[in-house]
């Protein structure tokens, strides 16, 4: 399959600290890819490497099949980006700020600036300076900058940061439209699960710099849909039985008596009878409906994703 973005064992170290480790991403054409992770998981560093802002310690980045390093002048003009907090000149208006970047990009005419501001609902002739903008307005301006030159690929780091609920819905709609009608590929990062699940076609889960999962939203929903809950006399022994008798490894021990088994196609009764045969007391066993949130918490090993 042809990928717009492909990384192989991408690693970034800052001294002894590993920010991103052996990351292998695959972003398909015309899809919205959501990189989900807690704060400090390595999302922004990954995006900075994809934009050539930071050099990887090792690994390969291919964009449109070409290595990024050495081809920046050909590849980067086709990308629109937003990284971390919006960075603009505080003494200038939105249009003046965009005019600077349009000049540097060689984007002709004022139409591009006006159209971009219209798309994010910011007035073109406003005399308000960037320093007087609210966080939400700054974020909108940053999105306008990313789309101003009609790029084929958008790399957006936390694009809904600081937006109000209506702004979030507008940006979501805009990104969907850009993807579906404009044929653009969008790579976004977020720590907000609900947003990523509403927007992304494919989700990559990153934690401590490691890509834990990379699946389509449908696959993830399927994976996280059900689990079996057991209340037993000894969860350590139950875990051993699950591993040895059923080769099941995807379970979580909640406490001394509660254990949850995920993604198992085995009948509950069969598992219970093996538990009993091995001397365990089983007081409860039932199938539960799961959620994406629980799935993410489980695989990242804790809290932190809203």
């Amino acid at each position, binding site marked *: 399959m042809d990928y717009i973005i492909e990384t192989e064992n991408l690693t970034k170290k800052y001294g002894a600290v590993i920010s991103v480790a052996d990351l292998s991403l695959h972003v398909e054409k015309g899809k919205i890819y959501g990189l989900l992770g807690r704060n400090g998981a390595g999302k922004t560093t990954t995006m900075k490497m994809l*934009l050539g*802002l930071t050099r990887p310690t090792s690994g390969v980045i291919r964009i449109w099949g070409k290595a990024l390093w050495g081809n920046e002048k050909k590849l980067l003009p086709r990308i629109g980006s937003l990284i971390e907090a919006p960075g603009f000149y505080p003494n200038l208006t939105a249009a003046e700020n965009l005019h600077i970047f349009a000049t540097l990009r060689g984007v002709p005419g004022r139409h591009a600036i006006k159209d971009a501001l219209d798309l994010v609902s910011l007035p073109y002739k406003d005399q308000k300076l960037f320093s007087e903008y609210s966080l939400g307005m700054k974020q909108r301006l940053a999105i306008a900058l990313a789309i101003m030159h009609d790029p084929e690929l958008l790399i957006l780091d936390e694009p809904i940061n600081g937006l109000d609920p209506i702004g979030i819905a507008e940006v979501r709609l805009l990104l969907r439209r850009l993807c579906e009608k404009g044929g653009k590929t969008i790579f976004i990062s977020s720590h907000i699960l609900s947003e990523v699940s509403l927007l992304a076609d494919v989700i990559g889960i990153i934690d401590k710099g490691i890509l834990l999962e990379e699946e389509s939203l449908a696959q993830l929903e399927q994976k996280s849909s059900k689990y079996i809950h057991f209340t037993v006399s000894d969860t350590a022994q139950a875990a051993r039985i699950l591993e040895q008798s059923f080769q099941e490894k995807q379970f979580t021990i909640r406490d001394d008596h509660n254990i949850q088994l995920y993604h198992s196609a085995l009948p509950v009764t069969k598992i219970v009878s093996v538990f009993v045969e091995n001397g365990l007391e089983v007081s409860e066993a039932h199938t539960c409906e799961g959620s994406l949130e629980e799935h993410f918490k489980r695989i990242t090993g804790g809290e932190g994703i809203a």
Partner: protein
Amino acid sequence: MLRLLKCECIKLKRSKFLLIGMLGTLIVPLLVCVRAVTNYLSDPGNVISVFTLYDNALMFLMLLSGPIVLTIMGAWIISREYTDGTLKNIFAIPVSRVTFLCGKLLFFAMLIFLFMLISWLEILVSALLCSCFIPVEQITIPSFLFFLIKMLFGGILLCATQTPFIYLTIRSKGFVAPLIAIAAVSLINVVLSNSGIAGFYPWSASYLLVMGRLSGSGCTKESSFIIILVMSILAVAASLFRFKKEEVR
């Protein structure tokens, strides 16, 4: 490069720093003229001449106020890209780091020449105005042109001697380090300007070179030029090297 220069001009819009820089530059020739007039009024034997006016103005512009004001301007032009967080937008366009810094340096050099031209013009106007009421010697076109060349030559040397502060700004990504450095440099300028080793000190040597007073310092013209040239080449090379390696964190 033209695009970069155009962008630098847009960035100055509504900028208080440019205004402060302008005022800092304008105040020197004005004070020099006021001082010359008060001296004349207290003792008519203290005749005002175009030479004295420009000599005094150049002394302050090249040894004291000029370097300080220009260091503030230079540090602001570069450090604002760090503090405003705009480098990530610029590098992602992509704009080459070397081209970007060269654009900044060229723009800064243009500002220095603008300041020198304004100072020259201010003295010219002040001298002409004074001559309407009190005698002013050497009011001739050749003498004004002579000092225009000297001011522009001073501008070139100021550009060269500002480069270490540019490096400090890139290195520290802020104002504080270059400001502390220029404060120290200016103090040493005051101490050294009349000493025998002033020609070896690039910031004092610049003024002495412009005014042709290097002979008393025990240093040849060539040696001073080489010292200034080597210092500025090293500072520009170090700045480019540092900026090229710059990672947006």
